């Protein structure tokens, strides 16, 4: 008999009990109460690992099993953190965990919290740390907006966990992103800065005023 395709569409059609059995048969240790999406993620990871380069050169076979996804996956089962710039003052941070790591950390009796460490970096090469602050996040939080104060050249956000006795533990580190800075915005008070007549005619004064009104948190103190 033809083996069923080992893909998400097929795995999602199985009951949770069948998934646990399948994970067990394949030597995957599933902590009790683990979300079925994590189990599917683990099985797909395993399939990915096993097929390896053989799959890359394999032939795609036609099947009459209709591929479908009712919902997008809740997780990609990877530990990582990313940062996107929204405007010169705010960044959007999102992160995720590998199921095993998440279970191991949160089920540990000394687990206390997760937190984000927001690092200000200099423009030196390699970048050096100027300052940082921490933002505590909930166990099930996966995104956060962070205001980025000061006049750092770049920022990086790290995901940490902390328990009641041991020191904090770094879980993931975002790539560095450059924070926009502009000399012309440093003196938002009208009249405090003399612009060239061409820039005045271009509307720089009104622009600076509006920019200050809408993005004042972007200005350094």
């Amino acid at each position: 008999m033809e083996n069923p395709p080992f893909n998400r569409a097929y795995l999602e059609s199985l009951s949770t009990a069948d998934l646990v059995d399948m994970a067990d048969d394949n030597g995957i240790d599933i902590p009790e109460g683990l979300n079925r999406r994590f189990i599917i993620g683990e099985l797909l990871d395993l399939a990915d690992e096993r097929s390896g380069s053989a799959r890359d050169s394999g032939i795609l076979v036609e099947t009459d099993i209709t591929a479908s996804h009712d919902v997008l996956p809740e997780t990609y089962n990877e530990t990582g953190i990313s940062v996107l710039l929204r405007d010169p003052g705010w960044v959007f941070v999102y992160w995720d965990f590998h199921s095993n790591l998440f279970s191991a950390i949160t089920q540990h009796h000394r687990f206390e919290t997760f937190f984000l460490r927001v690092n200000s970096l200099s423009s030196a090469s390699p970048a050096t740390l100027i300052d940082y602050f921490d933002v505590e996040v909930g166990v099930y939080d996966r995104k956060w907006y962070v205001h980025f104060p000061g006049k750092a050249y770049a920022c990086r956000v790290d995901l940490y966990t902390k328990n009641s006795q041991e020191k904090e533990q770094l879980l993931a580190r975002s790539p560095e992103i450059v924070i926009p800075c502009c000399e012309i915005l440093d003196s938002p008070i009208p009249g405090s800065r003399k612009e060239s007549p061409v820039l005045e005619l271009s509307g720089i004064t009104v622009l600076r005023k509006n920019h200050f009104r809408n993005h004042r948190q972007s200005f350094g103190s």
Partner: protein
Amino acid sequence: MSDTSIQIILDADMPFIRHPDKPGCVEESRFFDSLSFTYLPLLRSCTALETEGIPFKLAIAFSPTLCEMMSDPLLQTRYIEYLDRTIEYGLSELERCSSDPALRELIKLNMDMMQLNRRDYVEIYDRNILGKFDYFATHGFIEILATTATSCFLPMFSDIPEAVNAQIETGLLTYRTHFTAIPSGFWLPAMAYTPGIEVVLKSYGFQYTVLETHGLLFASPAPDTGIFASATCKNGLSVFARDKNACLEVTDPSTGFARAPFCLDTERDIGFELDSETLAPLFDVNTGRRLTGFRYWSRHAGADGKRAVYEPAKAHEAVRAQALEFLDRRKETLEKASSLLEGEPVCITCAFPASYFGTEWYEGVAWLESLFRQAAVRSDISFSLPLANVRLRPAEKRIDPYHSSWFASGYAEEVLNSTNDWMYPYVRKATVRMIDLADRFPDDTGLKERSLNMAARELLLAQTLDWYTGMTRSEESEYAKARFEESLKAFTVVYESLGSNFISTEWLTTTEKKHNLFRDMNYRVFSHKK
């Protein structure tokens, strides 16, 4: 060309909306509205100007998704059916309003316009209106800018260079399918700029792009010529800055030209006012109320306090006055700029969404035509194309432009907020996976290549910024979410099928037929550049 000029750039964009299985859906009707009220009237204006020997210069960035919709046989057929339905419905509307001569005149006006649209579309352009725009481009009236494959907000992917390359390369491929020129200018969707994009654009041979005002004025160092000439980035790419204030004179939601009292109130359309039974010959209201083109009221109240009936002749006169006012203000500014810059050539850049003209502002196309007609008879101002204004001055300071977009926030708040931020982990993960697939399967053919091209197409669609901005508007959010998820799920099906080596060809064929854009899609555009 005089040394003081205005350059007008239109962003002709629409997300890819095509539902073979759902004829008459409200989202598709927006495409038909843009043909009826923006693009066909614009071509009529251009043709009239050319015939009369009146010079006109206009730059347009046609998004590849709009081009693909304009050249799609199914949508072309549906558009003709839509025109026929509207013309026929006009007869019953004439009967319904038989006791009101003023309304009957406006009904006839709309019917005439739809008949003209049908004649132009079928008999003159043979359903291919892009061919006529290309004609104007090859004759030096229009400059057509290239842009991304789908209107992608590039700063959200700037850390994934393969994603930016894929958008640009697929956009260029589609440009070559529809137009004959080699594009010199590149339109950044939403004019969204982040440092580094200039390097990518230059590497594809583009000479210039356009930024929002603060993208140039907040540059480091600020350009000597302000917004009145192209500035040059450190890598040699030229950048123009839009004159936001000049554009707001036209498009400001409360004080713009379209809000003038004599203008047609485009929102007071019978499609939003009559009962479902009366509208049934036109569309099923259960699929969403929409514009029909039958609109009778101006934006101001009459002496009795009631809504005043729209008067086309009065509106036409007023549009001429608005065009004159706009030209005079620009001339005044340009004269000052020219004097400050000691006689150097100066220009003002005005960039607008194309659909604003005609679709949102009914008189907008007539206003554009009036601009060209009035400028033609005066010697103090003219219109120019961006490429002619690209100048490299040896002594000029090279600049680093500033993060910017033409959204109200000036940055990315409209595409990154609590309503749409959940989309980024998915779309960015899918993007990384696509790059991985392109690298793992560099030489594949047959079913695997078809599947990979399908995945690439769906990923590009998922990056369409309209789905992200749509999430912030309650009336659009359901559709935007459905479209985003549909593309992401389709991508995931291919991704996992390649992992399991099984794929349903029935599903693949159905999806290909539905999202039939980018026929020459090559998934390898997502490969790492070696």
